């Protein structure tokens, strides 16, 4: 909530630390330190200080000047050189910095004994690290340690270098050395952690753990342990070897006193006993914890799990048939009953929820008494029903109820609500809970449309009526009843899905926009809106909403899934670029600093955090989003540069001609990707990144769509998709090479080009496999679609992948046409078939996309992808063919006059140029029509979808309530701020923003198409004979 100055693990901080510390080395008699008092790196401090100050105040030019002067005076000072390297690096002169730093290192090696000090080494280390040369930093320290054996300060520096390089074995070796020299507990623990890391994150065998245990035992025998964290490492070590009994005994012995908080100790004890199979003993311990912390839900679960022997979180196996369920569960009931009496605090949810959990378990074990569970739910509702967390707390119990009872429950709950005439916070809270439960139970999907409209009306009215409750609240505080508008939106979106009437969608947007006008901080509204705007082809508004969420730092990993996929398929290429770069910057920065933070944990003796940090970094490195972003980021660069063959080539070159991603692709399956996106905050209609119910026909997805999703299948689909995309850059590269080499007439069956062809073929095979087909089958399907025997529907959501495939396939196939391929296999695809396929697809999409306002959905984004992907790659391939056909002197001249070299070009290439031109022209024409429509007409069209016809349950009722609110707000006591906000809200503004945002999307797309037309125009000119 309240922040303080940020702590930054930054190099300057380290430099300053040395300044402030008064040169730590001097305090250490073992340290061979050149500097006497007032010396820094062998130079009098007063001479160095101005350089430090200049660096601190970021005056790097001045710092450089000062450091040059310093060097003139101390030409043999490695420290002075290192400082210069540091300044150069800060100025962004990386190469120069590296060369100076290497000089400093060489000088260090040459220098006399007394000039090696920790300050010089750490400065060199910082610069090498920032230049991505950790190995050089390590070798500096290795050299120093070799020169001054047994110097702890230097050894710690070396240990730190190994931490940075994640060299766990070397860490262990140096830590053991330090332990032998100093006999300190901390060094032993450093070694033990390094061993654990070898087993958990490296390829060390589990036997190593025995070694670590032996080391610790020996130390304990002679010195005992003194740090609580050391004890927890010891226990974790034993747990990793399944020595639960031993661990438990140690915790009960003298060492146990190191853990000072009693409940913490008990929790560990309970866990160890349970894992050792002593369920009774564990249950007893968990009882003790519950007496101390009666609200501890996790502990109650463990308690019940031990009693019933079925707690999977403690790896207890399935309960044995011998346990006497009835007897044990009644024991649990008695315990909870006593707990309630002892606690005598009725504000704790714990005991109430515990009763519900007991009833749930009874049902699970066949002691069906749903009536009792429902009764308990109602009791619990009357006590805690007003709390915002109620519905989520009881979610798991609702699932246990048979469906007929769920309806009964709703009827009973509504009777419990004390609906006195005056608005009250508690009553409102209870109603909201009731609505949430209705939503959770999910029977809304089977109710008639009129009922749903009724719900939306009811909730909106309730929001308006209860605004007075919040009249004294600060704008920063959540208002009472804010959830009502989110729930109204949920119902309206369902109505849209059912009826396909866009008026409901517009109403959903209006409701949320009003909510944001009243209080602009409600992130729940923003998330819903960004999805609605994305769906309705208004990505600029979606992006704006996303930006207002202020997603930064680690939230980029968990929250940006809301916007990434839609933006990647939009025409806002610059904004996507910003998004992707911002995310990658965050992740890469963290990977760079993570090891330093791990070392910080070592230094502060918080050993358990050492392991945690390393595992966390690995988790992020294996993030599927991180990988996707890296690949999509590169594809995006290709899309953005697609019009200039030279620029595409330079992008491809920077990607090692696409080969880097091939390596990634082949590693994905062994890497075990992590999925860190927090999907819980997604709207019901799009529970995961690749699913949007609204795009399909209406179906009853009652109750938890999220649970219907097959997780393993989803993971597989994501992995396949990443693999597919990672092949793209290489295929683009190879396709252009293959196609143009044929034009040049230098395709060499036995030479380099032949290698390209066979590599492309093998990639085509892999790609087809990822699409679920063998190469010949994939080609057959493609051909039958191009001949109109099958519709594009067969490609389902992989349309773009298939068309990309077609483009690359054609490029490869040229080889077989023109060289009578030795592989004896040609496919019936050629320029004409390919263009025909693309043309058909574009026409289809144009027809289904328009008019945009009345047809939300993904068609426009597919059209954008068609142009920015397969069409772009094809243009690029054609460009490259044309360039190859030109005499070398003329290659760079744009629009050069036609000459006889064109004869080398096949008719196919020439025809494709005009065909491509026609395709893009068609899209451009359509876009122009859309863009030229008067804005006001579009607004009128949108608003007309809300006009209520008499005796009709169509959209418009909710907006009507909002409009009435605007008109009557003066009569309500809602406070000046809310009053002003509501009066400022106008439906027409919402509609105008929508229309404008769609216009922006179209205009951006238009300019992409126009630039392609220009390129094609030039090509046309070039290929004319």
């Amino acid at each position: 909530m309240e922040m303080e100055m940020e702590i930054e693990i930054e190099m300057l901080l380290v430099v300053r630390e040395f300044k402030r510390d008064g040169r730590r080395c001097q305090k250490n008699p073992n340290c061979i330190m050149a500097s006497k008092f007032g010396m820094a790196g062998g130079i009098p401090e007063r001479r160095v200080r101005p350089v430090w100050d200049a660096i601190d105040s970021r005056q790097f030019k001045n710092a450089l000047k000062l450091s040059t002067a310093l060097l003139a005076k101390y030409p043999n000072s490695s420290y002075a050189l290192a400082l210069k390297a540091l300044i150069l690096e800060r100025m962004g002169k990386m190469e120069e910095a590296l060369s100076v730093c290497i000089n400093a290192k060489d000088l260090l090696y040459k220098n006399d004994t007394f000039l090696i000090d920790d300050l010089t080494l750490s400065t060199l280390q910082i610069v090498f690290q920032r230049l991505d040369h950790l190995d050089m930093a390590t070798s500096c320290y290795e050299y120093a340690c070799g020169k001054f054996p047994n110097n702890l300060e230097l050894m710690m520096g070396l240990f730190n270098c190994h931490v940075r390089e994640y060299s766990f074995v070397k860490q262990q070796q140096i830590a053991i050395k330090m332990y032998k020299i100093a006999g300190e507990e901390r060094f032993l623990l450093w070694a033990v952690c390094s061993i654990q890391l070898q087993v958990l994150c490296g390829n060390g065998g589990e036997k190593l753990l025995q070694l670590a245990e032996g080391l610790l035992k020996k130390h304990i025998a002679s010195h005992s342990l003194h740090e609580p964290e050391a004890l927890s490492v010891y226990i974790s070590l034993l747990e990793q070897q399944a020595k639960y009994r031993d661990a438990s005994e140690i915790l009960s012995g003298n060492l146990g006193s190191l853990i000072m908080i009693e409940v913490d100790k008990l929790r560990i004890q309970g866990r160890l006993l349970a894992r050792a199979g002593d369920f009774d003993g564990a249950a007893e311990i968990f009882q003790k914890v519950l007496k101390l912390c009666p609200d501890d839900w996790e502990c109650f679960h463990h308690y019940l799990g031990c009693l019933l022997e079925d707690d999977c979180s403690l790896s207890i196996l399935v309960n044995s048939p011998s346990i006497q369920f009835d007897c044990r569960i009644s024991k649990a009931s008695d315990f909870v009953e006593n707990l309630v009496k002892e606690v005598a605090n009725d504000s704790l949810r714990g005991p109430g929820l515990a009763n519900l959990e007991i009833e749930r378990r009874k049902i699970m074990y066949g002691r069906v008494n749903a009536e009792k569970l429902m009764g308990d739910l109602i009791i619990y509702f009357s006590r805690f029903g007003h709390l915002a967390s109620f519905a989520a707390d009881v979610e798991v119990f609702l699932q246990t109820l048979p469906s007929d009872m769920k309806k009964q429950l709703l009827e009973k709950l509504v009777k419990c609500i004390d609906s006195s005439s005056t608005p009250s916070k508690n009553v409102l809270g209870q109603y909201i809970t009731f609505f949430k439960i209705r939503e959770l139970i999910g029977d809304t999907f089977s109710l008639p449309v009129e009922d749903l409209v009724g719900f939306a009306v009811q909730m909106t009215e309730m929001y308006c009526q209860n605004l007075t409750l919040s009249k004294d609240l600060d704008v920063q505080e959540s208002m009472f009843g804010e959830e009502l508008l989110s729930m109204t939106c949920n119902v309206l979106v369902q109505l849209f899905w059912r009826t396909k009437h866009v008026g409901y969608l517009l109403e959903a947007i209006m409701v949320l926009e009003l909510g944001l006008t009243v209080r602009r901080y409600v992130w729940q509204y923003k998330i819903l809106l960004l999805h609605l705007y994305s769906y309705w082809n208004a990505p600029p508004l979606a992006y704006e909403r996303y930006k207002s969420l202020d997603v930064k730092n680690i939230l980029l990993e968990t929250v940006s899934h809301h916007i990434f996929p839609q933006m990647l398929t939009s025409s806002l290429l610059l904004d996507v670029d910003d998004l992707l770069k911002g995310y990658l910057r965050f992740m890469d920065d963290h990977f760079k600093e993570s090891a330093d933070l791990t070392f910080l944990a070592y230094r502060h003796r918080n050993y358990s955090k050492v392991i945690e940090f390393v595992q966390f970094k690995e988790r992020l490195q294996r993030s599927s989003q991180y990988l996707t972003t890296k690949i999509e980021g590169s594809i995006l660069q290709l899309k953005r540069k697609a019009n200039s063959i030279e620029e595409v080539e330079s992008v491809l070159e920077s990607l090692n001609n696409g080969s880097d991603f091939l390596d990634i692709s082949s590693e994905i399956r062994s890497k075990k990707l992590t999925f860190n996106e927090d999907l819980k905050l997604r709207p019901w209609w799009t529970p995961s990144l690749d699913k949007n119910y609204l795009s399909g026909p209406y179906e009853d997805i009652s109750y938890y769509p999220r649970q219907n999703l097959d997780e393993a299948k989803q993971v597989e689909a994501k992995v396949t998709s990443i693999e597919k995309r990672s092949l793209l850059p290489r295929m683009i590269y190879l396709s252009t090479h293959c196609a143009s080499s044929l034009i040049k007439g230098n395709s060499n069956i036995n030479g380099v080009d032949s290698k390209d062809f066979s590599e492309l073929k093998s990639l085509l095979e892999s790609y087809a496999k990822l699409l679920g087909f063998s190469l010949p089958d994939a080609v057959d399907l493609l051909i039958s679609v191009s001949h109109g025997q099958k519709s594009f529907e067969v490609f389902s959501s992989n349309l773009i992948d298939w068309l990309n495939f077609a483009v690359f396939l054609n490029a490869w196939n040229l080889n077989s046409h023109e060289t009578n391929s030795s592989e004896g296999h040609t496919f019936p695809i050629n320029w004409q078939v390919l263009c025909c396929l693309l043309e058909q697809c574009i026409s289809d999409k144009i027809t289904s996309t328009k008019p945009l306002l009345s047809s939300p959905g993904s068609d426009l984004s597919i059209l954008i992808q068609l142009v920015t992907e397969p069409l772009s790659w094809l243009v690029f391939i054609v460009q490259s063919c044309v360039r190859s056909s030109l005499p070398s002197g003329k290659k760079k001249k744009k629009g050069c006059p036609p000459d006889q070299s064109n004869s080398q070009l096949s008719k196919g290439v020439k025809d494709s140029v005009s065909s491509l031109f026609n395709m893009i022209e068609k899209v451009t024409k359509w876009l122009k029509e859309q863009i030229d429509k008067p804005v006001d007409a579009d607004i009128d069209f949108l608003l007309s979808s809300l006009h209520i016809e008499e005796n009709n349950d169509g959209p418009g009722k909710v907006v009507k309530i909002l409009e009435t609110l605007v008109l009557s707000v003066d009569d309500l006591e809602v406070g000046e701020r809310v009053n002003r906000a509501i009066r400022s809200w106008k439906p027409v503004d919402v509609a105008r923003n929508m229309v404008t945002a769609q216009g922006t999307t179209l205009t951006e797309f238009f300019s992409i198409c126009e630039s392609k037309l220009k390129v094609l125009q030039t090509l046309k000119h070039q290929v004319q004979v």
Partner: protein
Amino acid sequence: MTTIRRFCCDDLLRFSSVNLDHLTETFNMSFYMTYLARWPDYFHVAEAPGNRVMGYIMGKVEGQGESWHGHVTAVTVAPEFRRQQLAKKLMNLLEDISDKIDKAYFVDLFVRASNTPAIKMYEKLDYVIYRRVLRYYSGEEDGLDMRKALSRDVDRKSIIPLKRPVTPDELEYD
């Protein structure tokens, strides 16, 4: 129903519903991890059934002599779990650790002078305004340094309010 336990790195991937709230700052990684690496006992998370993150507290212990104190850096509760006295529970936990384990003299925290609801809450938890820090927040808004004495400060000297406001430069600790 609440389980309070030590915060761990994986919780950073689960706290989005808490941190999307505009009053809760999402710091950079080194900030969180420095706290975890140095003061893991001062960083706790509260979980609801279904392992949903309800809120968390982060803090530290620092100072010399009689200034040895616990500090609350951030305490936050998701909107869904407000009005359940969770912030109080988390604060009490940090106070307990400062008092019993680290034997600190007092606990302090900084709050925006305009954040009346928070100030009121801290006052209910027995914190007093010790001093005003001029333009503490980005050089714009004043901060209030609020303190609560712990058992080691028998005479409650640590919380006697200062008569004049101080500037950020005069603060003993960042």
